């Protein structure tokens, strides 16, 4: 039996010879096999180790070669890019720069590495630019910076440096990386664009101003035309003249409506319309509207119904002028398009808390209605449901668009539901704050006794009219004479003040735009002067400019309200009567149409 050489050596060393008993032989056999197997295992392990090492070596070489290829490729990209790519340490010293840096700064990459980042850069003044990132002050550059330099070639340049901190795997900040991009061209374009946009804004503003002024200027002569037409109408014209005068009145009214709408629309479009928040009596406002429209409704032979929820709070906070304007527009439309039946205005309280109320408004008519497929178009500017409508019923086509924009400004919207030949419902909701203050006013029914049938008399009432426009003065003079009022005229605010010092009036009507002293100033003086005999009497503004003056302007000057020109003779008389027959001398009330 030939044993493993180690076992054979061991047997020889210990002097043991071949002559073993069988048990010993068995043991030797096991030991011999174990030695052989151990050798085999060892060889196996060595082979495994060698092959593994070889593989790792090859893998490592492959990786190295890959790294070289990738880094060569990256270098090529970095060297050929126009923008500067950089890395700097946390103190702001360059640790890497591509060749674009040399083109930008005039310093070579070799010179710059290890230098502070701002060394080669000069400010516009030619002075060194300094540590504009504030790294030495311990500032952390978060997003980078746009800055101006004078390049080494003396050109003025805008640069955009974007920068990002670099962190080690331990979380410690190692420095920064980023890019510097020449944005001179971009900046120049930006400046040019800003200049162009300013020009455009100026042009647009000039256009708006022109439109406003034009509309305003048109209104003054228009008021005169309407006023004189009204005068002629009340001076018993002949039958053949009556028709012409009616046509003249309708056309001029339509023209005025157009001008007013354009003014309003322009104001909304330019964003200069501010929604006011003031306490007012909504029920009273609606009753006034009813009063205003009563004449027209009567003329058309239709009914006007007012349904106001009993739960409606007495005082709410909002813009009464604009709410009136919306309702006026909707009611006006409803009347215009209704030949038989009724126009109804419904105001209901959807819900209310202690401080807030949510109100639903609806203006219903039994008029011509609108085709379903045209419903979506009626809110567009200068659109009406049917082109024929304009011819037959008039209107600018701006009214509903204005209503909708106004409601949008009040966080609401306008809805319409209509059946052709049956009628239409225009509705909107408003969330208004409630005012818990007790109203100082007398109740509206007292202000507006619904006695449309009875001619109210102004006989003997002393009224001062301050108005500079001759035609307007003539018109109002004729009206007041006809109504037997006892009146004085003032050509401007100064004269009005003088008169008010001498005579005690029941009412002063004050034009707003007058030479020397305007309406606001005059009112203020009359209210505040010790000499004045008229500190507490009603003073109402006369103005063609609806919406041009805010409630605030009225109140600061001490105006009680506003009467818009041109006057409808009947409405004016009614209004004057109401003012003069009010219990309380001053009410601080909103405007009267």
């Amino acid at each position, binding site marked *: 039996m030939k044993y493993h050489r180690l076992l054979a050596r061991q047997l020889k060393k210990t002097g043991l010879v071949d002559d073993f008993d069988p048990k010993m032989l068995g043991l030797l056999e096991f030991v011999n096999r174990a030695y052989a197997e151990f050798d*085999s295992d060892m*060889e196996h392990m060595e082979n495994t180790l060698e092959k593994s090492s070889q593989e790792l070596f090859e893998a490592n070489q492959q990786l190295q070669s890959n790294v070289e290829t990738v880094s060569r490729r990256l270098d090529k990209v970095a060297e050929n890019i126009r923008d500067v790519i950089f890395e700097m340490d946390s103190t702001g010293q360059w640790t890497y720069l591509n060749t674009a840096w040399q083109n930008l700064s005039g310093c070579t990459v070799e010179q710059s590495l290890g230098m502070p980042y701002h060394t080669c850069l000069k400010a516009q003044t030619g002075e060194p630019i300094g540590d504009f990132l504030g790294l030495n002050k311990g500032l952390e550059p978060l997003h980078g910076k746009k800055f101006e330099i004078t390049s080494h070639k003396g050109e003025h340049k805008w640069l955009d440096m974007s920068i990002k901190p670099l962190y080690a795997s331990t979380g410690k900040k190692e420095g920064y990386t980023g890019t510097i991009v020449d944005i001179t061209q971009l900046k120049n374009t930006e400046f040019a664009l800003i200049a162009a946009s300013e020009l455009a804004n100026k042009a647009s503003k000039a256009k708006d101003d022109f439109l406003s002024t034009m509309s305003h200027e048109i209104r003054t002569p228009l008021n005169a035309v309407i006023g004189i037409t009204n005068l002629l109408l009340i001076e018993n014209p002949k039958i053949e003249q009556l028709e012409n005068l009616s046509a003249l009145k309708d056309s001029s009214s339509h023209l005025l409506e157009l001008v007013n709408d354009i003014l309003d629309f322009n104001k909304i479009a330019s964003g200069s319309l501010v929604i006011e928040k003031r306490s007012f009596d909504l029920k009273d406002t609606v009753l006034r509207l009813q009063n205003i429209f009563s004449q027209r409704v009567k003329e058309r032979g239709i009914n006007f119904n007012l349904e106001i929820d009993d739960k409606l709070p007495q005082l709410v906070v909002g813009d009464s002028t604009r709410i009136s304007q919306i309702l006026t527009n909707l009611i006006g439309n409803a009347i215009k398009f209704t030949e038989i039946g009724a126009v109804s205005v419904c105001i209901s309280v959807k819900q209310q808390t202690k401080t807030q109320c949510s109100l639903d408004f609806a203006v219903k008519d039994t008029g011509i209605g609108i085709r379903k497929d045209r419903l979506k178009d009626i809110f567009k500017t200068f659109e009406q449901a049917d082109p024929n409508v304009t011819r037959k019923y008039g209107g600018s086509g701006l009214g509903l668009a204005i209503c909708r924009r106004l409601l949008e400004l009040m966080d609401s919207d306008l809805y319409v539901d209509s059946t052709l030949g049956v009628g239409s419902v225009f509705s909107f909701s408003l969330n208004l704050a409630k005012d818990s203050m007790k109203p100082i006013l007398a109740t509206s029914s007292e202000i507006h006794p619904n006695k449309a049938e009875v001619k109210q008399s102004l006989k003997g009432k002393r009224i001062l009219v301050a108005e500079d426009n001759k035609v307007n003065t003539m018109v109002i003079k004729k009206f007041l004479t006809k109504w037997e009022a006892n009146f004085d005229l003032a050509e401007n605010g100064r004269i009005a003040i003088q008169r008010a010092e001498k005579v005690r009036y029941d009412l002063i009507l004050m034009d707003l735009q007058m030479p020397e002293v305007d309406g606001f100033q005059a009112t203020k003086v009359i209210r505040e002067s010790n000499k004045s005999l008229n500190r507490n009497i009603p003073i109402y503004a006369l103005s063609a400019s609806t919406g041009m003056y805010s409630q605030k302007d009225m109140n600061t000057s001490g105006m009680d309200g506003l009467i818009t020109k041109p006057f409808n003779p009947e409405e004016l008389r009614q209004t004057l009567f109401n003012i003069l027959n009010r219990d309380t001398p001053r009410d601080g009330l909103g405007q009267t149409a």
Partner: protein
Amino acid sequence: MDIFQFKVTQLADVEHLEIPFEPNIFFLFVSPGFSAIDAFVEQLALTYPDTEIVGCSTSGEILGDQVLDDCVALTAIRFQSTTKRVKDPALEQHTDSHAAGVALRKEFDEKGLRHIMVFSDGLHVNGAALVKGLNEGGTSNPSITGGLAGDGSDFKRTFTITKEGVSTGKIVALGLYGEQLQIGYGSKGGWDSFGMERLVTKSKDNVLYELDGCPALELYKRFLGDKAKELPSSGLLFPLSLRNEKGQAPVVRTILSVDEEEQSLTFAGDVPEGAYVRLMKANVDRLINGAEQSARIGTLEDDGKDKLAFLISCVGRRLVLKQLVEEEVEAVNGVLGETTYSTGFYSYGEIAPFDKFSPCSLHNQTMTITTLSE
């Protein structure tokens, strides 16, 4: 449960079995070198006509603390209340191993089915697919354990046994029913992966052609060095650790056969393309620790009653452990305790769930333990 064990070394032993009870089942784990197996099984079936016989060929029989060769490790048991059913379909009746698994499972009445013990031909089967089929074929949730038959480390002919006789290309499955039956199982390896992670670039089912674009057989031969001559058995020294996705627990796969012409390797389970593999290595201590850990998981509470444990260990472990192979069996028996009788074999693949919460799957290079008690 009554248990009787006997080491059969010759045909005549069948006449000297003095079993003190009428057994329900014989478990026979047979060395491929025991040439009288056909006659033995025939005689045993004649002598005990009402007793089921299940078993297979091995790469080493386990009986008690011993690891044997050239004999039959016989275990006879009688259940108190557990009932059993034996099925042994041929693999070739089905399109593939998965279909065979599904069909085999469907042959069992699912009602009350607690456990299925499976012994399959070790060479003509895709063990992973078979196990998948066994899981999918049924509606209930029995535990499934077992192993693939071995034949030393020759990879030439393995067989399974029923009372009908000895056959190749078959699967033997024993279904166990009954509330009283308690089952424990555990399966642990002890191998570590080493070296580069390699991508499976070409494979089909359980046949691997290329790793990282190179012929897989060539790589194996390079690492085996001189031992390449002993393929496929020497392939057992290099099991593959295979993972499909990052984060997934890797499975171990060993070689069943090689094809020089195709330069391919056939594994006991699927090796899908796109999977990553690493070679594995082991040492004696780690393997013994692995076996012990497996026993701790698979042991049942000691209630003083006799229990039977099946120890199915991979032939690859035997090649590493060599003269120390009994150490892992002793380590297992030390954990299982004195009331547990053990038998089993060295196999070409082990079948068991990873843990209590996973479905059963095919393993390689593990010590897989199934413990039964009533």
